[in-house]
């Protein structure tokens, strides 16, 4: 299989990465090489094999329902690009 420049544009759009036509073309060649490498995996018969999502077969540990955090918004917002009245500012959101 190989990816078209339209595929590249589509996934770049999903990933919110601005990509010009020239960049999409360059990326297309590289990704197709990588997917050529990945393709070797696809022929393997994996019928009946359970997918492995985690390195250890353990279950989620649960935290007690208690409030342990305090207000640190001033510290956190010191590194924010734009804030006002305690709010993070972004270009207007249209619903």
């Amino acid at each position: 299989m190989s990816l078209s420049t339209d595929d590249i544009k589509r996934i770049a759009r999903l990933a919110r990465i601005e990509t010009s036509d020239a960049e999409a073309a360059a990326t297309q060649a590289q990704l197709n090489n990588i997917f050529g490498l990945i393709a070797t995996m696809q022929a393997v018969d994996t019928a009946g094999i359970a997918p492995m999502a985690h390195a250890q077969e353990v279950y989620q540990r649960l935290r007690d329902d208690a409030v342990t955090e305090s207000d640190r918004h001033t510290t956190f917002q010191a590194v924010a690009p734009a804030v006002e009245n305690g709010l993070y500012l972004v270009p207007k959101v249209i619903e």
Partner: protein
Amino acid sequence: MKWETVIGLEVHTQLATKSKIFSGSSTAFGAAPNTQASAVDIALPGVLPVLNRGAVECAIKFGLAIGANLNRVNVFDRKNYFYPDLPKGYQISQLAKPIVEGGALKIVVEGEEKTVNLTRAHMEEDAGKSLHEDFHGMTGIDLNRAGTPLLEIVSEPEMRSSAEAVAYARALHTLVTWIGICDGNMQEGSFRVDANVSVRPVGQAEFGTRREIKNLNSFKFLQQAIDYEVRWQIETLEDGGRIEQATVLFDPDTGETRMMRSKEDAHDYRYFPDPDLLPVKLDEDWIERVRAALPELPAAMQARFQAEYGVSAYDAAVLTGSRALADYFETAARACGQGKLAANWVMGELSAALNKAELGIAASPVSAAQLGALIARIQDGTLSGKLAKQVFEGLWEGAGEVDAIIEARGLKQMSDSGELEKIVDEVLAANQKSVEEFRAGKDKAFNALVGQVMKASRGKANPAQVNDLLKARLQ
């Protein structure tokens, strides 16, 4: 052509935990912006989620309450999309293995009982809030709500009218507040409804294309939005148009739905199991402990109220509208031993007074024990219905306990027959005209005499006793 409406609801209930689902931040409503947004909630680089046991327990309670299957191993997935109120760029949710699958809820619409099946309920985190009031043309983001635990409850598309949808939403609201997993506050967004609505010609097996109405935060808007949407879809189809699958918003000011302008490519969420969270295991011990601690559920309580207190099915349904109301009724009924009378008072005098004062049952100035004591005084003949209403007013005003009010206001029904006989004789003597009319065969004249006696006794005479005495004197 005749059309049939098909509705399925997705309800987001905020779970009543103290802390967030994956962080130790408070979930309290109304704090100053971002003061309840921890490093985890604002998704600083490097932070990790740890699951709140309380949120899982809420989901277990719900699953048990609707008779659903609890997945003993359930899994959190990431739902990927970009939105400024979603700090990680993904929402932690459950897709393939939700904690709750199946279950059902009974609803009553126009006296007809119907069962609505549930598809699933899954745990997820809430997003923050976008504040659109103008910050120099920018939007402000408050992440206090980000990470609040939600249980998203999805029904099968089994409702066929807005009335059924509202009945289902109300029954669900009652249940989640009943079992204490949600505060049910719709103004604060604790219970938010999305409605999937489609129409199809009656008799057609396939569903029509659905549109999803997002974020309805009152039962009234739910009804209005569905009614508008159904009319719009039928008109569109009858005009030869097609329905495109879409997400729409309801505008309460215009009463109309409109397409959302954003999230145009939001359909490719690239779900995958969250590698930061391990599968959640529910052990049987835990489930049994939760089951044992569940309160009696509305359906069971309705059946018991009918059997134990002899109230009608309708009354039982009204009385179990909330756990507080049901508890109130039962306390009053037990205090006086008169279930039916208690039901009448709770649904009559008390409800009217609460409505007038815009109070909930929990804030009732008259306690259930007081109402029970009042009814007991009707039962033992101390009070007539009319006098009892005066005592109720006294209770409402906080004038003291039932017997003290009766005593202080002299509201005791006249039980001394000598005193009553004296009043009857005086009335007969003063109303000879009525006596003659009665003897001439006019029954109305008898009622006038009864009225005079009651008046002369200032309402304290027992009407039955007055009847008997008058009849005896006039024979």
